[in-house]
């Protein structure tokens, strides 16, 4: 679905930023020799669309701007995609990226609020982001923000939906009528221990959200324009909270990770693997 016409130049710019984000992801997990590349690569187009597709209203020069949109990473282990995106967006220097996960760095292994600026919520313990978003949305209502101000985008893992707290939050967001919330499910089908369908089945996942009163869109999570358009549509809705089920591939963009997603949930590539990964990333998604 396309709701906005984009120029070839805009499209090209989005594709290029996806490449840069993917490069940072493999470089920082290589530097740290740890971290979570697979679930970061699967969410690359989601973050690129949010920050570079004209979706999230934010200001890197004023991270605490009180009418900003909030992007919240609930699957708090996918820090590489967050740090890569925030650095590209100008929140901090890309020089910091090699310090990922080292002692004293702002780039902690799992997200820590305001470290670096632009990170909205501490996470890593799964299942808390949607509830936090409900609190933010209630606060924005109390503060009388305009309907299109202070939107909240929450990136949730599909494996993360095993956590019961999500469903408490999903229930309460529609109960309170919090249309500012858009959840984006990174539906990459793999969790820590293996394929989601074997570990704990969540399908029909979209029907479940719909039954809880949310508007549901199904999106190809690696079509950055489609993701952007769906986000803009969700952002404009004022009748109910919205969810996008983004169909993705864990490790997308790096063949040996995408072919063995369970093996690349939480480790960094070797020198040789890094070279191959960068070469493939520069070639673009095929």
């Amino acid at each position, binding site marked *: 679905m396309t709701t906005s016409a984009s120029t070839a130049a805009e499209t090209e710019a989005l594709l290029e930023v996806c490449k840069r984000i993917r490069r940072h992801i493999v470089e920082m997990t290589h530097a740290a020799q740890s971290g979570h590349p697979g679930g970061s690569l699967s969410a690359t187009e989601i973050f690129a669309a949010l920050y570079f597709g004209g979706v999230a209203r934010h200001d890197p020069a004023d991270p605490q701007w009180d009418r900003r949109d909030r992007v919240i990473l609930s699957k708090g282990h996918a820090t590489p995609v967050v740090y890569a995106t925030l650095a590209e967006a100008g929140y901090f220097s890309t020089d910091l990226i090699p310090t990922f996960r080292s002692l004293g760095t702002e780039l902690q292994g799992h997200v820590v609020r305001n470290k670096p600026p632009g990170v909205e919520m501490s996470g890593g313990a799964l299942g808390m982001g949607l509830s936090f978003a409900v609190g933010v949305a209630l*606060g924005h209502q109390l503060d009388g923000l305009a309907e299109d101000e202070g939107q909240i985008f929450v990136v949730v893992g599909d494996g993360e939906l095993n956590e019961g707290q999500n469903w408490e939050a999903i229930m309460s967001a529609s109960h309170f009528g919090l249309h500012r919330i858009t959840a984006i499910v990174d539906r990459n089908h793999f969790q820590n221990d293996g394929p989601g369908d074997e570990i704990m089945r969540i399908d029909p996942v979209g029907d479940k959200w719909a039954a809880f009163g949310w508007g549901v869109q199904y999106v190809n999570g690696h079509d950055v324009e489609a993701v952007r358009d769906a986000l803009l549509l969700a952002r404009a809705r004022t009748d109910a909270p919205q969810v996008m089920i983004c169909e993705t591939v864990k490790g997308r963009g790096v063949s040996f990770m995408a072919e063995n997603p369970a093996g690349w949930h939480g480790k960094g590539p070797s020198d040789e693997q890094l070279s191959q990964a960068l070469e493939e990333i520069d070639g673009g998604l095929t």
Partner: protein
Amino acid sequence: MTASGWSAVPEPPPAATREAYGPALVKLADAGYDIVALDADLSASTGGNKLAASHPDRWFTVGAAEQNMISIAAGLASTGKTVYAASFAVFMPGHCFDQIRVQIAQQRMNVKLVASHGGISVGEDGASAQAIEDLALMTSLPGMNVVVPSDAVEADQAIRRAAEDDEPWYIRLGRPKLPIVHLLDPSVEPKHQRSFELGRAEVIHLEDDVTLIACGLMLEPTIRAADLLAQAGIGARVLNMATIKPLDEAEVIQAAEETGAIVCAEEHNVIGGLGSAVARTLARHCPVPMEQVGIEDRFGQSGTWTALLEEYGLTAESVVAAAKRAIARK
């Protein structure tokens, strides 16, 4: 007049510490504080329903979902609100410790956790409803202020004091109606009227043979224990240690140096509460004999709250016996 010197004042009717919560919230909202209060389907018992009635836009219930409540509280606090979240102590922190740990404590959110029905004095509902470990959980979190008021007057002061800063707090309240220790009467000695101060012990008796340190529901029987000891010619210092964290270490050390023996009394497991905090201070700075009155590492059960206090040894007589043991070890 007893040795404590304040029972000559006409006594107000007993009140539960939890009864202070709702009226305190209403006072804060009336005074223009930017507060929001959350409940989890227990608002009639916590008193949060009083704010719901007076300021409905400032109160939300999330249903029986404490994990959701805590993370919502953190999100609200991130928009600049002073947030109060209330439930029973077995459910908060019992049901939502990780949400408190990551989203309230690690993020240093301006959230005041007010837990009613702490301890075994919940009574007839039995073990699953009786929090004997909440202080251990909450004091283990860096940056968390942990307060156990001894009566409804102190509870009111502590709940409203919490709104004056932007730090996370845990305030433990109780279900039973207790005597009011803090008499707000101008004819009473000033030392019994001190306002609650975070991190400061309240000195109730300044004697030198032994120090009795109590919090919460155990303060009143501990004051009675001091009276009983006085009849036996033993001068007992009494400290109301309403703040478990940050502990008033200076007052503990001074008491240890001047009296040479310490007794701690609390309605909590002897592991991880007031006694543990005091013992840590004594061990590092001034080791003196110390005894504990508390729940001896076993779960609660059904019974009237008074019968339970007897069964678990949470009485003035237990404090007297512990004081004599501590003095004998000097």
